[in-house]
């Protein structure tokens, strides 16, 4: 596969199309806008459709309709737009529809929303947080696969840096195991059959009055527990003899990993742990990686959200410190001054030395 120089947005769009995505709808918002533009430019040639929806609510509604027909479909947004979609996301989980969602966020402040579900009720979906373009190409494809495997939405959580960094990348198709047939999709052919399909988020069944929410929700809960058990993904390095373990995700982990490697090269006993899935959070793997370390330092670009999951994973066995914090450029796009190799290195260095880091 030949490598082409492109921005993250373009790489994601191409990876999605390579994975069979044939429908996209979105509404512009920085830094999501370019993803929409690339889908609009590329989908028609593949026989797909990209709709410039009039709002985020309409975008996710359209994507919902498309995915209900069994097509691979996606939508997404940034910050505000994702918030507007929360009702739909929550209910798409209940409708068991495999929609892929992209949050190209401004910074990392949407961790809670992504992992706890900003919508109502009990629901869960996979959250994949690529560290760079190459991984974004893989995880985008994985997202479509896992979504259909579980009949559950999957969120790919990136940011401005992921969307706007340009590199030469190859869109290598990832091979996946065969998936179950889409015996749930509607195409109109069962109309008049006496046993048509009704794709709905409330457990309705054709020919049967009423709903049974408790049974329905408990079945979903069981599915989500199975997902939690099966889908945790992570990357750990230099953890064996580490005294300090740095935990970071997404683009920010590109900085921490670089700093950890530099410090390692200089002989420091520091390791790096990066959750690739934010939900399910790789708690066991983290607990394993943190075995024997003196301190775990969490560097996230927000007021402290993932640190909850780190603490929940470690259950008080290791001291956990926050070394990240809110950091933003003046446009609010999330490329804050903290994100600079030497500054990140200084924070990791301070944690290594047991000094407190001002957020």
């Amino acid at each position: 596969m030949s490598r082409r120089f492109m921005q993250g947005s373009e790489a994601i769009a191409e990876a999605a199309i390579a994975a069979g995505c044939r429908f996209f709808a979105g509404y512009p918002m920085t830094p999501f806008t370019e993803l929409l533009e690339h889908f609009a430019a590329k989908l028609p040639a593949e026989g797909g459709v990209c709709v410039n929806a009039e709002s985020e609510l309409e975008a996710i509604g359209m994507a919902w309709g498309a995915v209900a027909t069994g097509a691979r479909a996606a939508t997404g947004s940034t910050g505000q737009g994702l918030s507007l979609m929360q009702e739909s996301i929550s209910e798409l989980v209940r409708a068991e529809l495999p929609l892929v969602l992209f949050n190209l966020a401004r910074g990392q402040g949407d961790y809670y929303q992504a992992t706890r579900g900003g919508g109502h009720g009990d629901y869960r979906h996979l959250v994949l947080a690529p560290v760079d373009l190459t991984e974004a190409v893989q995880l985008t494809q994985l997202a479509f696969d896992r979504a259909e495997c579980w009949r559950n939405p999957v969120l790919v959580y990136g940011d401005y840096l992921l969307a706007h960094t340009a590199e030469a990348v190859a869109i290598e198709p990832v091979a996946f195991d065969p998936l179950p047939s889409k015996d749930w999709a509607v195409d109109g052919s069962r109309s008049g059959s006496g046993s048509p399909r009704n794709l709905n988020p409330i457990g309705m069944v054709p020919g049967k009055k009423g709903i049974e929410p408790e049974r329905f929700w408990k079945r979903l809960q069981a599915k989500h527990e199975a997902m939690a058990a099966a889908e945790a993904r992570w990357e750990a390095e230099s953890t064996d003899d580490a005294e300090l373990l740095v935990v970071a995700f997404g683009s920010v982990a590109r900085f921490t990993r670089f700093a950890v490697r530099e410090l390692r090269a200089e002989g420091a006993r520091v390791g790096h742990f990066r959750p690739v899935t934010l939900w399910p959070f790789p708690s066991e793997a983290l607990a394993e990686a943190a075995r024997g370390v003196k301190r775990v330092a969490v560097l996230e670009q927000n007021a402290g959200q993932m640190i909850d999951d780190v603490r929940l994973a470690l259950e008080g066995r290791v001291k956990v410190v926050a070394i990240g914090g809110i950091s933003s450029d003046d446009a609010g796009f999330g490329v804050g001054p903290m994100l600079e190799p030497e500054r990140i290195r200084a924070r990791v260095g301070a944690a290594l030395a047991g000094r407190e880091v001002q957020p």
Partner: protein
Amino acid sequence: MEREVLLTGIGGQGVQLAAQVLARAATAEGRHVMSLGTYGGSMRGGDTDASLLLGDAPISAPPIVSRAWAVVGMHPRNWDAALAKLRDGGVALVNGDLFEGGAGDAVSLEATALATAAGSDRAAALVLVAALAGATGLVSLEALVDAMAASLPSYRTEHVETNARALAAGFEAAPTGLPVAFEAAA
């Protein structure tokens, strides 16, 4: 070996296009390249910076740099912050037309004037990157011209010719005595 190039200017000066042209040109010549455009202020008329990493091996560093081998200035507003990142022995180059009173030790080039002469005062940023390339051997003029043509969106293709002239003008006007970018060709 990795070379970091920082471009700084304000919205509308073509800084992002110039950065993209340099990045694509270097990619075409076999370099590993990573680039990122950022906005220092709210959308319109604010600062706009671009950082590039060019190397002969895959880039391991993150897309934002703490130190730069070259700093190119299109506007004084964010210049000091950019200059502060310059490595010892690095290259500092500014558009003298827009830096009243110069920019200290930086090499100054009348890029707007050259661009105007080439047919468009909007091409000054291209003049500057071409000058940087010409002076340090970072990339060839041909690669720049091809990259520029490939980088223009469909609604801007009418600018290919004037931009090519601006690149050539910059490349020719390249200041001398600057360090060489890559010792051995990739």
